[in-house]
């Protein structure tokens, strides 16, 4: 099982993703420089967090024009798994591989803290090992994570069950006070219609070891391995 981790200029969670996937979880992972168009024969692609191009203009707005993105789009179109984390999610939105866009956080501040995410759907490549309603404790670190999609797009997202994670209270209750950045419908993560492309603002790669505070992020990274290889499938 091999992952490709795309490195844009300004990506800064690329090494964290690599460490989590290889050192912690024991998979293979290659960095793919944004000017490359070959995905190194990977089985899954990760667009990591960070500040591609400094987040200048809009988060992800410049990175989506990188040469590698055409290959990522083809890879996604072929039904293969693509995960965008934080800035990676923003790149996927800008690239049109996922619907919607991001605004500044409701309180206009960058926010770094643990949040609670409720798993809404498990029939995606990145949540199949989780339970519906399971609450994950995973950190966020972003200034522009206030998700928005126009009403018609929202209706389609909900009808197609494309909302995968929502910000909730620790017990999984929806509550505006726990909607950390003011996202529409408390959306923390979504998938595409084919359910192979997933983007989320929280950082699963930061929540893979007890020593740094949580292991709740593993289920997201492990799900795709189970989906592709059968390893670690739930009984």
């Amino acid at each position, binding site marked *: 099982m091999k992952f490709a981790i795309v490195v844009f*200029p300004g990506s800064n969670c690329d090494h964290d993703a690599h460490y989590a996937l290889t050192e912690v979880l024991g998979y293979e992972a290659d960095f793919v420089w944004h000017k490359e168009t070959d995905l190194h024969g990977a089985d899954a692609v990760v667009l990591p967090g960070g500040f591609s191009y400094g987040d200048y203009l809009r988060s992800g707005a410049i990175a989506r024009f990188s040469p590698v993105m055409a290959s990522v789009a083809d890879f996604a179109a072929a039904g293969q798994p693509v995960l965008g984390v934080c800035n990676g999610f923003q790149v996927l939105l800008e690239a049109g591989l996922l619907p919607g866009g991001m605004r500044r956080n409701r309180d206009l501040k960058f926010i*770094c803290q643990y949040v609670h995410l409720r798993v809404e759907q498990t029939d995606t490549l990145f949540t199949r090992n989780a339970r519906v309603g399971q609450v994950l404790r995973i950190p966020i*670190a972003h200034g522009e994570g206030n998700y928005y999609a126009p009403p018609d797009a929202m209706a389609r997202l909900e009808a197609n069950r494309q909302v995968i994670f929502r910000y909730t209270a620790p017990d999984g209750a929806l509550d505006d006070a726990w909607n950390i950045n003011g996202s529409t419908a408390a959306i923390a993560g979504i998938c595409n219609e084919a359910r192979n492309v997933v983007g989320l603002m929280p950082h699963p790669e930061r929540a893979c070891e007890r020593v740094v505070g949580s292991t709740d992020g593993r289920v997201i990274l492990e799900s795709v391995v189970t989906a592709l290889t059968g390893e670690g499938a739930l009984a």
Partner: protein
Amino acid sequence: MIDESTLVAHGLTQDEYQRVLDILGREPNLTELGIFAVMWSEHCSYKSSRVHLRRLPTESPRVLQGPGENAGALDIGDGLAAVFKIESHNHPSFIEPYQGAATGVGGIIRDIFTMGARPIALLDSLRFGPLTDSKTQHIVEGVVAGIAGYGNSIGIPTVGGEVAFDESYAGNPLVNVFCLGVANADALILGRAEGVGNPVYYVGAKTGRDGIHGATMASAEFDDTIDEKRPNVQVGDPFMEKLLLEACLEVMETDALVGIQDMGAAGLTCATCEMGSRGGSGIEIDVALVPQRETGMTPYEIMLSESQERMLFIVKQGREAEVERIFEKWDLHAVSIGQVTADGLLRVRDRDAVVVEIPNKALADEGPVYNRPTRRPDDFEERQRFDLATLTEKPPAADALLTLLASPQIASKRWIYRQYDHMVRTNSIALAGVGAGVVRVKGTNRVLAFAVDGNGRYCSLDPRGGAMLAVAESARNVACSGATPIGATNCLNFGNPERPEIMWQFAEVVDGIAEACRALNIPITGGNVSFYNETDGIAIQPTPVIGVVGLIEDVSNVLGRVFSQQGASIILLGDAMPGLGGSEYLKLVHGVVRGTPPAIRLEREHALQRCLVSLAQAKLVQSAHDCAEGGLAVTLSECCFESGGIGAEVSVASVSDTVPHDVRLTVALFGESASRVIVSASPANTHDVLARACDAGIAAAVIGQTGGDRLRLSVDDAPVIDAALSEIERIWASGVAKYFEGRAA
């Protein structure tokens, strides 16, 4: 040609100018004069502080690099080095809070990766005026956002820091930033130019007219002409620096580099002459080859520009293409602007014309050195005098505790550190806000812990004692996480050194730091001095900020601040002593800043810290928290906060020889006696903890148990505080944030 007013504009004295004439044996031209002026400014030359800084201890078997290079380095085992330093960006942060703080972060990060280290953590040490003032709120908002904006973008976690508020900083905020990186111990890269004929390369942002004379500005007080100093503002570009960081680290792996230095204060001038001087070489460059952002720039402007995110490096002849290729990969264009020469001169050309010719050594090492007069302030003894009996009308203890917990000084700093990405790089073990920064070193079992501390109020009452307390507190914070302190850096923030009272404070502080570092076996590997922190003749409190670095050899020995179990024993290590001098309680509850700060016995402090480390290694304690501002009552509260609702019931005896009787209670609760730590231990381990403390010669007593959802405190068996934890925690949690609700960012 060089007249009196030109000298004044450049901040050079007649004597200094005479020295220039002697060195050159001729009149300098204006560009040369500008170069001398910045290199001999206080900021670059340390002319007022040098004679004192020599008294600091700088050696230990772990020191790989002491003061003098871009950063210090300590051996941390496994073939690795911790590379760290602290820098101030006080003046720029007052003029433009966001950009000033942001470029301060950028500058210290460059100092670290210049040494060949990958930066892995930042800490910030901040001082502002009272938060009730809207101008201060604006500054705080900008500074915090600026640090966040730069650190978050470049992907280096800000894992902790400290902040204090006092009137003396209202017109002179302090922004000190500490950065730490990890390098291979045998691959440290130095800022030297060697090898005649080796090319000198420039890479990074283009040069604009930014911050020309920033270094001389940092060496002058603020006054009504501040507006004229404004066009100098430098804007940070963290994206550019991220590219530089990655490209430089990649180039450093090739061994094609001879030396490298960032262009910080005094820009191209400082980078060229310092590298030349360290390597005993000459350097010749052509300013026409320097990439420029603006048109019509003169050699003077190019040499003195402080545009950010620029590096200068020397490449081994024949390896140029390899180096250029790596920079190209990162979309950076490294250009050769000159070469190393044998004559020891800084020679600057503008195409065919030679515009500067000055010996590197004269600029970098042979600047003026002043042993400025010192005088103890006349009111020194008077301010230390304080009679506890004058404290009438004391509020009930419970009310005083609430006042303290609600004050920004003591309240939760979450509003600040939540804006900092403190988790990127997935090394942060203790989360920001729960003690020292604690960061693992991937690929090893080792952990580094570091803290910045400094108490300006203590230092204003007793500079020497206050400095010792700062070293002790910083080291104690590190030891509370289970780490052995192994080295330190320092940032010395003071007023105008030309005033004898300020110079006296400075000399006393240096002596205090030196004495404490010797006693605690902590070498100083570098630092920074920031003078002229005055507005309209009013100086800041003398504020030494000490950044101590500690080492934990086994990640499983890391300790946190908060109680982790119900029913644990609460143990106080160390003695309570009489006195309230300089305390947070006196200031916040009575508005009094007087008395003598707590006395410190350094050998006891050392024993306490060693004892803490041994308790952590033996896994006998569950938590440890330094007893500092606000005394025992505040410290116990902090141990309960963020613990998931674990309360405590504690009973202590008052300090017996304190008079009068009703003050004893106050001293017991809010006195800030040094060298005290609260630890918690399971009942089964309690005896062993006490026995180890006894062996170490440390007073230790079980003062209560964790449990319940209240904080209950008795003094001499009389209950004095009984509060619902959730309620006092709410007050503490909003103490800083409440000032920023509804502000337009």
